[in-house]
């Protein structure tokens, strides 16, 4: 069983409980062991960088240091913002010794030291690269036949570019959805931004950005939008009502974490995935094959 240092991030303890539950349930089915980093702190999202860069990198480094201390080789984050912050901090620690020295000077106060030796990964990569899609397909005993899913990548999972990967038209999310028997829809805005923290700091802009995404997904026939990030999920789901009020629209499209859809396809009880009754009913109304009933 491969072991990972798991960094849930703040949202997974509150707004995104369903993401945490489903991530734990699904990884377990595939024999991936996620060990939560003890006493981790907030990664800062996009809010530290406008104040102090060095502080931002230091706070992220504390989590990396705690993970290194666990003896793990991989640091896994389910939130795209946490992932992006950890990924780039880790890589700068390797390339910028001056930065690493400054950070380690501060970490001394917490009896910690960081090397930047981990491999930082987003949760979705584990299924694509470690488990592999053939195995996902094999385990999907309750395939989501006929369910049209909009794979929503969002921003920070894909950007900034990490290596030579396709940032304009990634396909791995579509492939994962196909592996669980669902039908991924094609739509142009799958990597367009949901507004992120603009939902707080510039509500008008963010609602308009959410509206464009909902419109594109719905026009292209999405029964459900699948997300890889709690920020995206909150903006698309919780603020859907406000979008409707603002734009006179009538969207009522369920928004779910990709791990919740995977869990249903594996036949895991919806309650263990944090899937609500209304979401389940709406999926059952649309899918040809019925996901497992709640017990």
């Amino acid at each position, binding site marked *: 069983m491969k072991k990972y240092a798991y960094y849930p991030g703040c949202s997974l303890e509150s707004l995104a409980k369903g993401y945490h539950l489903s991530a734990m349930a699904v990884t377990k089915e595939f024999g991936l062991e996620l060990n939560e980093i003890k*006493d981790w702190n907030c990664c800062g999202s996009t809010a530290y960088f*406008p104040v102090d860069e060095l502080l931002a990198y230091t706070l992220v480094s504390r989590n990396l240091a705690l993970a290194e201390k666990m003896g793990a080789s991989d640091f896994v984050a389910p939130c795209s913002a946490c992932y992006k912050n950890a990924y780039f901090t880790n890589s700068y620690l390797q390339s910028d010794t001056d930065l690493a020295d400054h950070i380690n000077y501060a970490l001394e106060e917490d009896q910690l030291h960081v090397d930047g030796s981990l491999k930082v990964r987003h949760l979705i990569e584990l299924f694509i690269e470690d488990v592999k899609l053939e195995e996902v397909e094999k385990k999907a005993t309750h395939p989501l036949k006929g369910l049209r899913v909009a794979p929503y990548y969002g921003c920070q999972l894909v950007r900034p570019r990490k290596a030579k990967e396709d940032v304009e038209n990634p396909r791995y999310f579509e492939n994962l959805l196909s592996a669980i028997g669902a039908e991924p829809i094609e739509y142009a805005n799958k990597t367009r931004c949901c507004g992120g923290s603009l939902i707080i700091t510039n509500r008008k802009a963010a609602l308009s950005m959410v509206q464009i995404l909902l419109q594109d997904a719905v026009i292209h026939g999405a029964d459900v939008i699948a997300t890889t990030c709690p920020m995206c999920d909150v903006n698309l789901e919780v603020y859907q009502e406000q979008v409707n009020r603002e734009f006179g629209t009538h969207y009522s499209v369920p928004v779910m974490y990709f791990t919740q859809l995977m869990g249903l396809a594996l036949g895991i009880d919806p309650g263990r995935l944090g899937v609500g009754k209304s979401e389940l009913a709406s999926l059952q109304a649309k899918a040809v094959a019925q996901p497992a009933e709640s017990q």
Partner: protein
Amino acid sequence: MVADLSFSQEITNLMYASHGEPISHCLQCGTCSGTCPAVEFMDHSPRALIGMIRADLKEEVLASNTYWSCASCFYCNARCPAGIDIAEMMYALKRYSMWKGRSREGLIGPDFSEAFVKMIVNSGRSFEPLLAATYLPKFSAAAIIQEGLTATGLVLSGKMPLLPKKIKGLKNFRRMVRRIIPIGEPE
């Protein structure tokens, strides 16, 4: 005696940690503006803003809402043919305006960022209701009611905790932060 730096030089220096090309490499092609999902809410497009910085139009740049309208989606970075880290430039402008206390009146972004950082250095964790106190006063009455309804729904569905979390090693954590920025005397 420190030499007087031009505004464009100051911003370039603030971007020293950026992993992109200097803004002097900008072609003014407008790919960033055409790509930006928030451009219609900005006073000046990202392309125009880069031109203004290079022309040292400091007052006009600081008075713009453009950099506080950036959602950090990094689309411009991914597509810039000159390889400029434009999102980092927006962060540099945010920092510059915050340090100098020069952000435009009425924006929520600066208060939100400041409150967020204070919250983290005090507890180590994020807690949404604490943040709401910083931005709600700037919302309209109707928007406050909307936000209240949304939050109530989240609390009722168990998605919003009522008590903030704290990390256990808070004392050492705060000592660590103190080595980076001044946050008052140790307790």
